[in-house]
């Protein structure tokens, strides 16, 4: 990540998502979006750390006695080797957590065309929600759709605009069933997004709806 870009992020994660990520109760696909946004956003990183402090405060309260011998067996297992030094991840277009799902940077993404120049790559996550990378050619649109559940869209390259606002690299749009939108990529550059949803999308026109089972979105 480039540090300078942190200042331009305008659309952040909700408190609800940061609390869920701190508590560790989100679906894997949402965790991936949250971890990717956090890699680019210090504001949300600080909010997350505050929510983790709540976890620390709750931990301080409850205690159940350990059986005797617990400490000795823990002491016997302590590592005596020096720890590996931490190296910050090499900079790349994709945030580090996402690169581990893709198996590399942008050039390693295995795109599949879904028509109209739009491409996608479904990422392997648990079934509680799905995650995919979306490639929208400069100036092109994703078909008009609504949502049955919650959908998170994080911009990784380029920018898009919909009925609500314009979203640039690092911005995340949090959509629920109330939002029906047609994201259009900026004319200047192809747009790459990470999108996650906990329910299948609902397309408003017939053809994308027929295609839906094949697109797996």
């Amino acid at each position, binding site marked *: 990540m480039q540090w300078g870009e942190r200042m331009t992020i305008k659309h952040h994660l909700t408190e609800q998502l940061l609390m869920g990520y701190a508590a560790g109760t989100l679906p894997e696909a949402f965790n991936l979006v949250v971890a990717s946004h956090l890699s680019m956003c*210090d504001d949300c990183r600080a909010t997350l750390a505050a929510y983790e402090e709540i*976890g*620390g405060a709750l931990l301080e309260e409850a205690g159940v006695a350990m059986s005797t011998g617990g400490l000795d067996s*823990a002491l016997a297992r302590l590592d005596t080797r020096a720890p590996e030094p931490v190296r910050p991840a090499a900079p790349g277009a994709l945030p580090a957590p996402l690169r581990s799902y893709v198996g590399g940077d942008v050039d390693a993404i295995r795109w599949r065309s879904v028509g109209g120049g739009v491409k996608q790559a479904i990422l392997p996550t648990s079934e509680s929600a799905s995650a995919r990378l979306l490639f929208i050619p400069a100036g092109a649109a994703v078909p008009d759709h609504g949502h049955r559940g919650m959908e998170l869209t994080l911009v990784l390259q380029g920018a898009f605009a919909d009925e609500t606002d314009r979203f640039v690299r690092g911005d995340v749009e949090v959509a629920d069933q109330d939002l029906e939108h047609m994201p259009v990529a900026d004319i200047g550059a192809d747009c790459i997004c990470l999108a996650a949803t906990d329910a299948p999308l609902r397309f408003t026109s017939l053809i994308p709806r027929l295609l839906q089972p094949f697109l797996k979105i």
Partner: protein
Amino acid sequence: MTETPPEETEKAILISDMLRVRDQRDRAAFARLFGHFAPRVKGFLIRAGSDPAVAEDCAQDVMVTVWNKAHLYDPARASVATWVFTIARNRRIDLARRDRRPEPEDLGWGPEPETAQEDGLVLQQESDRLGVALKGLPEAQRELIEKCYFGDLSHREIADVTGLPLGTIKSRIRLALDKLRHAMG
């Protein structure tokens, strides 16, 4: 001269023990941390649905991880209890074997050790204040927060929790992150 309340002394000891584990690989300091945190981690895991025998084993694992990953502990970014909580939470997620939780990109080492320790004490005070504020919340709201952290609520069931007293703690951590980014230059 005002006397330091015993609770505050106890918190200061936790920080210095954690730093002894980190910097000197001090086993006696580890034993004290174990005495404080292992029962709490066990209690946390039981509340989160583990059976007591599994929770006992996992509490041991968590404390061994506290030792093995001590080099990642930065007092300016988390209180000791919070650092242990994050490890216990990750262990709970592993146990459930359902949803992986990738971590954000690593920021590497913390700021200069001396300033970090000072920042750590300030963060610890903020963290204590947060603990007091949590205790003072209306019962229903508090219960909701506990349910969320013990894994009893899905993300759909957590309504936006507003009015949580996170302001100062957030700005302390933001400051620590800025220093860290600056140090990495």
